[in-house]
């Protein structure tokens, strides 16, 4: 097996001018006793150098499976993975784990949610950082140790020399996550996947870690895929956002455009259900009734229709494709997008009927604001 299949500048087919990462219609299905779970069902996006894409969704939306699928970190059995993951012009979907070893760590790396379980509890922190330095960069011991020291101080760990000799349990959650980030950054990857990197952390530590990720990304001109369930985390820190629901991207837009001009009813409902500091206390929250669909037998039409207040007969029959909005780069899957006259008509029809086409109850809103939107 030749080393550096993709990493070397002379790797066959590698094109440094190609987009950094292109994901084309990727599908990831799991075979279970109950049937095939369509966890990721046809997702496409593109990521350029130095950019951040936020992937947002609730539990079970497929956002974590998507990032693992792109990185080739799926279990070997009972998985169907289709589509293309094109990294600098090379399709890496067909790569086996030996070939992927040249990509993991040195080209793409990942920061996981729980820093306790993603570190090895019986190995010293220093060894966990230098492992990939030896493997990918062929550093000798001294060089690797110096690099590890520099990495630990760059991620803001006090007394880095002493920490190299410690074990993960001797550090707090925030410090452990900094170590995980140092390991992920060790070989200078071009893409960093951060899968719920701050969900297990306190809010003040979350702010520290998010600032650290942003600063490192800027310094290293690295691209980042930030996976989270919290729209607040990605709002200020990503260039574009993809909202996932039932294994598909249901809305994808530049960050400002998404928040200023929400088109997908699911995104709107998600935003409205978040309690916000600006609201007076005891403000009634909008809720999304019902539950996400069963991914073994997804509904025929739009997967959000059973929970959508605008649902019409067409939504049950026909699945909406990703449609282009007025804003460049803003796509969504909805026949009656929020803010359109059709949406308003659909909503009024449902209010009069007292229910949506799928039978979910709809209440008339209390007030209509000046924009004409409910």
């Amino acid at each position, binding site marked *: 097996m030749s080393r550096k299949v993709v990493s070397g500048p002379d790797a066959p087919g590698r094109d440094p001018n190609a987009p950094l990462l292109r994901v084309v219609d990727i599908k990831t299905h799991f075979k279970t006793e109950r049937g095939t779970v369509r966890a990721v069902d046809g997702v496409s996006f593109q990521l350029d150098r130095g950019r951040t894409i936020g992937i947002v969704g609730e539990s079970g939306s497929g956002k974590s499976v998507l990032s693992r699928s792109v990185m080739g970190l799926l279990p070997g059995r009972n998985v169907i993975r289709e589509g293309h993951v094109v990294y600098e012009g090379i399709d890496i979907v067909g790569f086996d784990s030996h070939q992927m070893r040249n990509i993991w760590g040195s080209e793409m790396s990942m920061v996981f949610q729980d820093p306790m379980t993603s570190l090895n509890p019986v190995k010293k922190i220093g060894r966990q950082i230098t492992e990939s330095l030896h493997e990918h960069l062929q550093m000798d011991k001294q060089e690797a140790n110096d690099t590890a020291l520099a990495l630990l101080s760059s991620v803001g760990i006090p007394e880095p020399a002493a920490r190299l000799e410690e074990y993960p349990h001797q550090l707090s959650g*925030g410090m452990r996550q900094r170590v995980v980030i140092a390991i992920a950054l060790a070989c200078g990857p071009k893409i960093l996947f951060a899968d719920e990197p701050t969900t297990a952390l306190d*809010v*003040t530590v979350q*702010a520290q870690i998010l*600032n650290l990720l942003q600063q490192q990304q800027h310094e290293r001109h690295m691209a980042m895929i930030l996976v989270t369930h919290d729209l607040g985390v990605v709002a200020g820190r990503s260039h574009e956002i993809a909202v996932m629901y039932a294994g598909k991207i249901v809305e994808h837009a530049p960050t400002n455009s998404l928040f200023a001009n929400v088109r997908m009813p699911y995104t709107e409902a998600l935003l409205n259900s978040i309690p916000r*500091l*600006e609201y007076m206390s005891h403000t009634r929250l909008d*809720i999304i009734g019902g539950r996400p669909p069963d991914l073994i037998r997804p509904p025929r039409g739009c997967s959000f229709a059973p929970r959508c207040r605008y649902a019409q007969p067409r939504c049950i029959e026909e699945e909406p494709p990703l449609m282009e909005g007025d804003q460049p780069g803003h796509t969504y899957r909805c026949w009656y997008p929020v803010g359109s006259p059709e949406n308003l008509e659909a909503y009024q029809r449902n209010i009069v009927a007292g229910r949506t086409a799928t039978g979910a109850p709809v209440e008339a809103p209390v007030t209509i604001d000046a924009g004409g939107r409910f």
Partner: protein
Amino acid sequence: MAGSGTDHLRAPQDALIRCENLVVEFPVGKSGLKVHAVSDISIDAKPGETLGLVGESGCGKSTTGRALMQLPRPTGGRVLYQGRDLVQLPGAELRQLRPEMQMIFQDPISSLNPRRRVFDIVAEPLRIWKRASGAELTERVNRTLENVGIDPAVADRRPHQFSGGQCQRICIARALVLEPKVIICDEPVSALDVSVQAQILNLLEDMKATYKLTLVFIAHDLAVVKNVSDRVAVMYLGKLCEVAPPDDLYANPAHPYTAALLSSIPVPDPRIRPSEENVLGGEIPSPIAPPSGCRFRTRCPRAQDMCAQVEPKMRQIGLGHYVACHFPLEATGPKPGAAQLAAKRAAVPARPVAPPRPPGTQAF
């Protein structure tokens, strides 16, 4: 911060539940050292009020909630429930008060017995206290399940057949079935998705009205606490920092810790840039050897020599607004967090408050 004092307490006869100078310490092995989990905390809740307890992990908010319930009994201080000191109450008499005080926990799935049917889980308190039997028992359990939005027709299923949000509804039904006066909610929505979180928060508000409850609501998410509370107490390392009505606390945080907490919350609005300078550095010190004086001083941008010497006491700075800090932030003028908060407020229009819905109904 991180101070003691009782200036913020209301008259004892007004409070349904009140703790004074509560201390909870845990021994560290046989070393003779102690974890100072809760150090001299005083809080109270009037009947029908929701008291929000907020702080980071390790600040002692859950321990405080459990100490109110005498689980375990605190190391020191008094817990007054309707004027009776629970700490001094013999076990048998305390047990007679248990039906009036209930708890809801963070993880709804692990707090339900997986081998029992939902009906039996909710009926158990009634059976133990012999409050109902036969048809009356069935009727009361079904009515409670309906109130929390669970169809009694599925009550013969077991917890694993329900989603996390539905399990939390079942936990709420179990707490409500004895018609308690006080419910301690310990992080009831932290394990839930945002859309489900909103359902449970609305449900708690409805149940509070239906059953005339007093709630102690413990959470680490300031926005969630603001949404449900009538009064908010901010905790840090076993001490109280600030007590205030929620809207005032969030508009005019006086304690530097409250301001730092508020500015670290990610806002779902890209026009508000995440703040770099107000982010609190460092980490929460060990509760085994907490700092002298004000416990927040090691991370406080305004700390002076005095903060290491003298522990600040709770003092009033506004209507119902109390702070334990020697150098509190001014209510007007430049201060960390205020400008950002003002920008947040300007950026999002106030939403209309919808009228309460009848319990058990879900609307879009």
